[in-house]
């Protein structure tokens, strides 16, 4: 067998990665209510090799399902940092983008991407299961093309993220 080039190895790795994405089972917000239908028999996301998983160490995707409270943000960052590379973050609905309906709430952060890198956003409040599946498939394509590089960005801009996290968490 010939030696694989680094490029080829990456391609194969990405191909395999995208087919067995495990998402961490952490319901950070109300968007979690549309996840069980996606997970269970009606939409059955295991068709795409996706499955919920309980520990951060073994998971690939962190779903930030909706608004992020300061108290939760601390846990999300911990969970995110515990996850192993490559890891991906999907922001559900309006709230992680710009605060959503909680735009004037003192306890909800407005922009998730200031604190952890987000690879993909889904519009809606709630996003429908169809949109969730579309998002997973988009993420797979992005992994395939090497575009889902949030974890690399986190390392590259660690100072920026840490600064923001410190500012808000105090």
């Amino acid at each position: 067998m010939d030696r694989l080039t680094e490029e080829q190895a990456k391609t194969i790795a990405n191909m395999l990665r995208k087919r067995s994405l495990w998402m961490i089972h952490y319901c950070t917000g109300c968007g979690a209510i549309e996840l069980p239908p996606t997970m269970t028999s009606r939409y059955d996301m295991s068709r795409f090799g996706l499955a919920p998983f309980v520990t951060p160490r073994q998971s690939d995707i962190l779903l930030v399902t909706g608004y992020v409270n300061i108290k939760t943000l601390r846990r999300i960052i911990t969970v995110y940092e515990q996850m192993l590379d490559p890891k991906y973050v999907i922001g559900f609905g309006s709230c992680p983008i710009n605060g959503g309906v909680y735009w004037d709430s003192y306890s909800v952060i407005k922009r998730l991407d200031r604190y952890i890198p987000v690879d993909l956003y889904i519009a809606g409040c709630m996003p429908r299961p169809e949109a969730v599946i579309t998002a997973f498939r988009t993420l797979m394509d992005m992994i395939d093309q090497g575009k889902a590089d949030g974890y690399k960005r986190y390392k590259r801009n660690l100072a920026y993220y840490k600064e923001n996290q410190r500012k808000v968490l105090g």
Partner: protein
Amino acid sequence: MSRTYELFIGPNHPGIPGNFSVKLELEGDTVVSAKGDPGYLHRAFEKSMENRYYIQNLALIPRICVPEPDINEAAYAMAVEDLMGVEIPERAKYLRTIVLEMARIAAYLFWMGGFAATLGLYTLSQWTVGDRDYALDLFAELCGVRVYHMYIWPGGVRRDAPPGWEDEVLAYVRYLRDKLIDYDNIFFKNVMFKQRTRGVAVITKEQAIEWCATGPILKATGVAQDVRKDDPYAAYEYIDFEIPTLTDGDSWARAMIRRWEFENSLNIIEQAIKKMPKKGPVWTKMPNPLKWRVPKGEAYAKVESARGEHGFYMVSDGTERPYRVAVRGSSHTHMFTIAERLLVGQRLADVSHILVSLDICPPEFDR
């Protein structure tokens, strides 16, 4: 010399209902003390509501309780109607009843899935959560969205039911009746379920009253208390139903009460559709939302949620925005007063199913 250790269950834990945490102190695998740690879903609803017009709050209130949003809409609408002295049309009352019961069904289906999962029986969660999806589709047909309906609003409901919707609901009710046999077979009549739950986390009638329990927890101890009967809202006064009670007070009884209520809800929907006026207005005209002033006063509106009494205490100062809206989620009492006491002495393996058997809904007390 005892050796205890602390264990955090949640927020990132598959056995915790929602984003919430319980701090346990254990000796071996026996719980010595339990403390709830809320606030992961705190969104400052009550504060935000003070900043918005009465109608704008429509976007906020369903989000207070995620699995069963309609109770919030109903309680909010009732509080506003109470302050304004508005009577809602007959057909709207029935539509509210149907929607509230559908939401209850959806909540119970979700709960059944969660409860079965904490006992390790994932098949039922695959079924019930899948079946719940049809209810969401019916909601989408009625009001355009699956989860946050924003359908019940002060004065009535937002739209009349689309043609043929009632028949679809009836067909869904029939479907669920058939499925209920299967749920029974696989879960409620399953010996595994019985053995895991009987005699676990018993609450006596006296304790339930002392701890101010409401809803299925109270009914499971033998007290027939239900807001739908005691202070009828929507169209419940025209509907014939019974409040189920059991006297065991354990985890099993609470689950059975919920299963019973589920069947009750199916009956109520059928009755409501039969009795509902076929035509008629569904909304009492309300003022221009931007200049909607509610007379000064206080009101306490309560509804029966799938978990117990859900109340809105509203204070108006006569302006376009509510002066204060305070939300009473039944889980507040159930978690911090009951679960914290109940978990003591239980085994670690039972903790998550006890929490689910109390139907703790974190967004209700975090708000």
